[in-house]
């Protein structure tokens, strides 16, 4: 019998049991959709994160001091050890383009033109070059020691009247103080500019560490000398630092890293007093930091895909089950076909074709559903949808495999049915 004829006959019998076939297929649809959706979302997430690293960011080294045995992402186990003097010292090294502290200042609200918005994420305090020229849509970087700020698009647009360069914002900090800031620049993107911030889009306000961090730092950040330190310039301690290499070249980055760490761990720096034997300085590029994050994401994704794959297995069991029922139900038909000359392989082919059709339909519909779900998810968390085309081919292959695996035994049972018994079967 010709393969096309098998498919035609099998399709006929699938259509003869629409509801049953539909429900059977649903198992595979859900399984494939779940796998595809999670894989595509994971790929989109990774692409979204990696896509955020601009060439400029690639020469930035993000650093903190922590116990070398501490596991985790950026800033895990970090201690307040770096002073502004340290940053100045690192900046002066030949191998270093710039170095500055990084901190977030707890804030409560932002007022512009009489309108007040809550500012949950706080203020980001950093050096001027933290705001890269390429990421500015308008204006310029802030200057150290000035009451200036650069805000991102989301901050500018959250007020009824858009904030523009030259306007003034009033910020209410968590410690109760109020700061009046002059907007000197607005960034293009609303996503974070470094791994310290995270990557989600949110209203952000960037300010120079001097004077804001110096003034607003509290607790351990205020330095050991307590009140004395506040009076003195450079008394506040940084948890996180950014060191810029001259270029994004890996060799340059490595020399910069080595020089900065050598300086910070030498007696010249204030930080060395805190470092002792317990703490070590870590300096990593966003790519290196993200690699860790990606590893974690990948692990999580594998786990979820594993769970989704279980539903695919359940789906194939569903097909196997329904094919067994179908074989029993159609014993007489099998008998008729054999009586009129159907070979065992013809009968095997018919039933196998049926389960393969169910598997392929399930896989194709599941792929469509999975991509739709991934697209929806990517849209919701604002990521570019990455959908490798080979998934379609893969899905069809999975459908065929599922169909063959689940249909083989039932089809074999059908094929070896004795025509004499089958014709007598009621």
């Amino acid at each position, binding site marked *: *019998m*010709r393969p096309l*004829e098998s498919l035609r*006959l099998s399709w*006929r*019998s699938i259509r*003869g049991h629409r509801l049953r076939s539909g429900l059977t297929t649903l198992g595979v649809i859900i399984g494939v959709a779940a796998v595809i959706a999670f894989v595509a979302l994971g790929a989109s997430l990774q692409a979204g994160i990696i896509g955020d690293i601009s060439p400029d960011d690639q020469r930035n080294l993000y650093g903190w001091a922590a116990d070398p045995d501490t596991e985790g992402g950026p800033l895990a186990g970090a201690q307040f050890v770096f002073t502004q003097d340290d940053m100045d010292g690192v900046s002066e090294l030949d191998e270093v383009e710039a170095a500055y502290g990084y901190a977030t200042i707890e804030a409560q609200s932002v007022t512009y033109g009489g309108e007040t918005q809550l500012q949950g994420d706080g203020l980001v305090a950093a050096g001027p070059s933290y705001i890269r020229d390429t990421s500015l849509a308008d204006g310029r970087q802030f200057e150290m020691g000035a009451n200036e700020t650069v805000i991102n698009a989301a901050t500018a647009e959250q007020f009824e009247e858009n904030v523009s360069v030259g306007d003034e914002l009033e910020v209410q900090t968590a410690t109760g103080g109020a700061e009046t800031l002059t907007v000197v620049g607005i960034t293009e993107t609303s996503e974070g500019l470094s791994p310290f911030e995270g990557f989600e889009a949110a209203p952000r306000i960037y300010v120079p560490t001097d004077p804001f961090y110096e003034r607003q730092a509290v607790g351990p950040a205020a330095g050991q000398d307590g009140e004395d330190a506040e009076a003195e310039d450079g008394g506040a301690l940084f948890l996180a630092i950014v060191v810029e290499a001259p270029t994004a070249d890996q060799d340059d980055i490595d020399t910069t890293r080595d020089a900065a760490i050598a300086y910070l761990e030498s007696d010249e720096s204030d930080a060395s007093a805190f470092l002792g034997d317990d703490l070590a300085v870590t300096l990593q590029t966003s790519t290196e930091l993200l690699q860790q994050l990606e590893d974690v994401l990948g692990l999580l994704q594998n786990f979820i895909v594993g769970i989704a794959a279980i539903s695919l297995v359940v789906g194939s069991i569903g097909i196997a089950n329904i094919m067994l029922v179908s074989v029993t139900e159609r014993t*007489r*038909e099998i*008998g*008729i*076909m*054999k*009586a*009129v*000359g*159907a*070979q*065992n392989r*013809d009968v095997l082919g018919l039933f196998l074709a049926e389960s393969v059709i169910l598997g392929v339909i399930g896989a194709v519909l599941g792929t469509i559903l999975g991509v739709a779900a991934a697209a929806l998810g990517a849209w919701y968390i604002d990521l570019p949808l990455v959908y490798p085309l080979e998934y379609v081919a893969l899905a069809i292959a999975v459908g065929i495999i599922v169909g063959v695996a689940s249909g083989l035994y039932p089809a074999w049972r059908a094929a070896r049915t004795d*025509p*004499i018994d089958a*014709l007598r079967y009621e």
Partner: protein
Amino acid sequence: MESPADAVTMVDVRKTYHVGEPVHALDGVSLSIPRGSYTAIMGPSGSGKSTLMNLVGCLDTPTAGSVSVGGSDISTLDERERTTVRGTEVGFVFQTFNLMPRLTALENVALPQLFQGVSRAERIERAGGLLERVGLGDRKDHLPKELSGGQRQRVALARALVNDPALVLADEPTGNLDTETEAEVLDLFEEFHEAGTTLVVVTHERHVAERADRIVHLLDGEIERIEQLDGAGEPESEPGTADGDQGAGDEPATEQDGDR
């Protein structure tokens, strides 16, 4: 023993089933069914009718003896070859019609050709022509459930003939039909017989069997007697012909080797 003029030749055929005690369903049967003949097989339950039919229909193999269908000795064939012989040399007509419920009349008739790899266009032409011949030219696209019992049996007959078999084997073909339809179907059988089709009808109804040229009476797995009919619905039985006589002058070489 075997002559090319025979559609079926059975020589000393035995079939033993082992269900606890060995049961001799057929116990030394020799029978020839010439091409173009019309044979009825009668006998009470358990006489071996079904076993005989399964053997002639190439559904089963004998325990001993030889069965030739369309010139092939089925006891020497493997399952696959036997299926091929069955598909090409035997046409089945069943009591319960046994049509494929989801296929149209045309597709049902064409089904045996599907398994022989005949092209679609050829199948449609051949099956369409046969449906015309059985008077169902206007019912080609009907499903079995949309047809009456008589119509279904005519579809089944058309299907049995589609591969131009050596013989058509009908098992109680009128068992599920009312008297009127029964007559119609039997008339159709006769029509095809006159056109040269070899017919074997298994029945327990005398008036169905009497349409044939001869009646083979089975009893306890042996041929009790073979009754020659003059045709034309003559109900007279000929008690003496079973043994020895061999119907002197009868063309259809009725063979019955005295094995008992």
